[in-house]
């Protein structure tokens, strides 16, 4: 390459290294070095062409020196001292994508010396301009040239330039653009056919990139989760920490008081004992002292006698005999008196076993838990008793440790009913308004009395039991709920049964007779359409299960908004029993009918369409131009769903436990769609007719098996 340029330029051999163009790709330098000699040659040829007009006398010492300085300056600027390749040569302008912004100035500067060299011979003015522009971009004319050079060397697509090089293509061939999943490396597309990667799976680089990003995001997510977990754990530890302190405090107190008690008792015992010993000692000493004194007296008497006898012995015979007789008497008497030589008090103190049993007891009781305080029974609440059972609630002190409770009871004498008041009349159950599900029933009734009553009692019997028919014997009762203050009650029941319900009223005069019975089946859910919520254009049937919208002209004015009935959406709500768990019902519709069926909260805005807000969910069907369109609306959004066979009977499953609302094509047992919905309050079924027609609700159906999977 060197030789070529030298020849064409006709330059001095002393400037051999002017126009060496090497790929300056810091990321992939080695490979590129030899790959595109043609390109360089081409470019160089153009340069030569440009230069052809100039005199060839360029490149004498000065220019060369300047060049060298320039080179050194730039090398230094770009920290390329270590790169020997660049130390001496010029850098090729064929820079690929990366780092493009950095290199143009570099390249341009590289170019400048060449230009300077070329133009040097031209006009001094131009040369000066060059000089000025050497460090920067200089005059406009020069700028133009430089821009040309820049664009040219970048090889940018431009139709303006004749010799257009397209480095990008070649670049792309070189760059990795697919990702070998097996080897987990980026490779070039053509490499796929080589042995190494032949059998391997490849995917486009973008995908690999995305999946790598996904991986990282996943891991980040995991990390975040872990952070949260650890924080929770730390909080928990703190709580436990505090609890440990509290418990310690309690234990300490307890032990201290016990311990003090024991100490006091011991001290007391000590005092008592010492005192007793002291007294004993005194006793003994006194006894002994007494003895000692009498002993001394005895001794004195003996001595006196002795002396007298001795004196006698020295008397005259006559006196001696007189005295001797008297003395013999005295002696005789004296010696007859017993001298007590028994020691009255023993020196030893008797061993006394100390009674420490109470201390032992105290010591033993230090480990026992104190007996708890007596619980306090809460007053009886209404509705908490039946004919054969009563619900008792009580509270305890938090300091107590309780293992179990013992409850005992005894009947007390009933206060005899006042004889002057008559028992009330029986209430009347509103059978049409009974709502039930598999686990409970909601009954309401009319009082049946002009005067107020004290309370009501609900009695239920199982429909299968033989005593059920008309017998008022309380022994056949299944349940009886007493103390009901209002005219409605929710009673828990077993699923899959039938019950007969009666209600009685109660006052001071006693209970009324049973009301007329009502029957309840705990299969599926029963509800009726609520006429109070019904849009004025809908008619509800007598049995509360069919809604009809008849043809009519729309009235001129809009309906005024209402809180109770729908004014915009021609809809009606059902009264579902307010019990959680799951509910299932079916709706029969016509294939060509435009309808909405779903659920909504009781306080959903009645001026809006079902599904247009976040308080309602519904399936919507519209039939237009022979096409069936299905939407599953909540908050005005619906997923994009197509259903090929229009359902004639729609099964709806409301599952509070799993927060789900599902729709099914009953005839095909086909699942259509499931909403996940947050049901913080109770919802009710809703139905709307967007065109004249009718729909019928079917109740009391137990959940079909296929429904349970959702």
């Amino acid at each position: 390459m060197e030789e070529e340029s030298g020849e064409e330029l006709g330059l001095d051999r002393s400037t051999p290294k002017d126009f060496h163009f090497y790929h300056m790709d810091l990321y992939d330098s080695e490979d590129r070095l030899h790959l595109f000699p043609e390109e360089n040659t081409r470019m160089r040829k153009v340069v030569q062409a440009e230069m052809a007009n100039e005199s060839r006398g360029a490149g004498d010492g000065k220019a060369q020196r300047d060049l060298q300085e320039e080179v050194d300056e730039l090398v230094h600027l770009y920290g390329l001292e270590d790169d020997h390749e660049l130390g001496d040569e010029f850098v090729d302008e064929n820079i690929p994508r990366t780092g493009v912004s950095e290199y143009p100035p570099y390249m341009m500067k590289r170019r400048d010396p060449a230009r300077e060299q070329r133009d040097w011979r031209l006009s001094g003015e131009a040369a000066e301009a060059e000089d000025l522009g050497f460090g920067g971009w200089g005059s406009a004319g020069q700028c133009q040239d430089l821009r040309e050079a820049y664009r040219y060397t970048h090889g940018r697509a431009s139709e303006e330039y004749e010799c257009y090089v397209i480095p990008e293509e070649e670049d792309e061939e070189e760059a990795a653009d697919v990702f070998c999943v097996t080897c987990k490396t980026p490779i070039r597309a053509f490499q796929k056919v080589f042995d190494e990667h032949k059998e391997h799976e490849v995917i486009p680089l973008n995908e690999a990139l995305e999946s790598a990003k996904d991986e990282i995001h996943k891991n980040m997510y995991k990390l975040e989760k872990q952070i949260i977990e650890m924080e929770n754990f730390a909080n928990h530890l703190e709580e436990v920490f505090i609890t440990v302190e509290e418990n310690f405090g309690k234990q300490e107190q307890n032990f201290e008081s016990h311990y003090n008690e024991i100490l006091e008792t011991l001290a007391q015992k000590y005092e008592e004992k010492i005192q007793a010993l002291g007294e004993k000692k005194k006793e003994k000493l006194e006894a002994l002292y007494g003895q000692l004194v009498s002993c001394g007296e005895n001794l004195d008497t003996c001595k006196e006698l002795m002396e007298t006898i001795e004196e006698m012995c020295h008397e005259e015979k006559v006196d001696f005999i007189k005295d001797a007789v008297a003395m013999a008497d005295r002696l005789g008497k004296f010696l007859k008196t017993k001298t007590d030589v028994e020691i009255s008090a023993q020196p030893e103190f008797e061993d006394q076993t100390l009674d420490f049993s109470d201390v032992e007891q105290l010591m033993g009781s230090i480990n026992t838990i104190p007996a708890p305080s007596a619980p306090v029974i809460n007053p009886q609440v209404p509705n908490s008793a039946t004919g054969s059972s009563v619900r008792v609630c009580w509270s305890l002190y938090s300091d107590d440790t309780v293992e179990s409770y013992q409850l005992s009871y005894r009947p007390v004498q009933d206060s005899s009913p006042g004889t002057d008041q008559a028992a009330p009349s029986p209430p009347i159950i509103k059978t049409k308004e009974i709502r039930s599900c598999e686990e409970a029933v909601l009954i309401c009734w009319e009082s049946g009395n002009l005067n107020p009553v004290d309370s009501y009692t609900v009695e239920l019997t199982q429909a299968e039991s033989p005593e059920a028919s008309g017998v008022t014997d309380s022994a056949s009762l299944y349940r009886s709920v007493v103390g009901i203050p209002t005219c409605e009650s929710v009673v828990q029941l077993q699923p899959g049964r039938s019950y007969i319900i009666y209600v009685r009223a109660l006052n001071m005069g006693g209970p009324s007779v049973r009301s007329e019975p009502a029957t309840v089946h705990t299969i599926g859910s029963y509800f009726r359409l609520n006429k109070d919520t019904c849009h004025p254009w809908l008619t509800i049937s007598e049995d509360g299960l069919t809604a009809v919208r008849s043809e009519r002209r729309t009235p001129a004015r809009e309906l005024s908004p209402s809180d109770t009935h729908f004014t915009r959406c021609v809809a009606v709500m059902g009264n579902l029993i307010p019990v959680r768990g799951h509910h299932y019902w079916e709706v029969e519709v016509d294939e060509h009918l435009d309808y909405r069926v779903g659920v909504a909260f009781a306080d959903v805005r009645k001026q809006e369409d079902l599904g247009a807000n976040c308080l309602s969910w519904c399936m919507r069907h519209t039939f237009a131009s022979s096409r069936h369109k299905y939407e599953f609306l909540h908050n005005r959004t619906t997923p994009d769903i197509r259903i090929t066979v229009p359902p004639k009977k729609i099964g709806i499953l409301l599952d509070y436990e799993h927060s789900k609302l599902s729709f099914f094509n009953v005839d095909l047992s086909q699942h259509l769609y499931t909403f996940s919905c947050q049901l913080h309050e109770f919802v009710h079924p809703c139905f709307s007719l967007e065109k004249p027609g009718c729909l019928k609700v079917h109740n009391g159906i137990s959940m079909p098996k296929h429904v349970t999977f959702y």
Partner: protein
Amino acid sequence: MALKQISSNKCFGGLQKVFEHDSVELNCKMKFAVYLPPKAETGKCPALYWLSGLTCTEQNFISKSGYHQSASEHGLVVIAPDTSPRGCNIKGEDESWDFGTGAGFYVDATEDPWKTNYRMYSYVTEELPQLINANFPVDPQRMSIFGHSMGGHGALICALKNPGKYKSVSAFAPICNPVLCPWGKKAFSGYLGTDQSKWKAYDATHLVKSYPGSQLDILIDQGKDDQFLLDGQLLPDNFIAACTEKKIPVVFRLQEASIRKL
């Protein structure tokens, strides 16, 4: 038929295994993946066949989809075969990614040089179920099939050509009408020759038009932004129109974004 176990890994309480065997239909060694849920230790479970799409092997589904937890909970045995015969050394089988290796299209080829080995339809509907029923605790009466893209096409045609054999069929972004899309045309002309009447026997949209059989429950999920959908390779609308007319129950869900990661 002897099964050689290649690998076995515990997963969500069950076992993910890979086996190799000598296939009679395909005249080569074939691998397939089987997941046995915990319930399989004590009783027979329903069998679910998964058919993968273009360029896949038996590995893609078991490593990328994360289906194991559901399969474990619901007690399903999931079987994932490969997408074409391997190592047959047929000239041209590796030339493109959408024909030949990894692109069996679940047909029985009638053209040379493919007809000896490329019999994926028979493999999936006959040989493999027989093998599975004989060697694993599955209930032969409860079988379902599902797949992605080319595998979705496979699932649909297997179900439509065998009324009553599968209890349900689902597909992710399936090729619904191969005779009208570039992939299908390329594959069918290669495997089945130029007689388009032979092509229709493997086209879900055409099969539906003459589906006589028992009730089917079809679920299709399709990504809205799926490039192949936009390129006219999948053509679900044609399939839905045909099903609507013939009253075949289908629920078709168009999901946000593309689900083409397998």
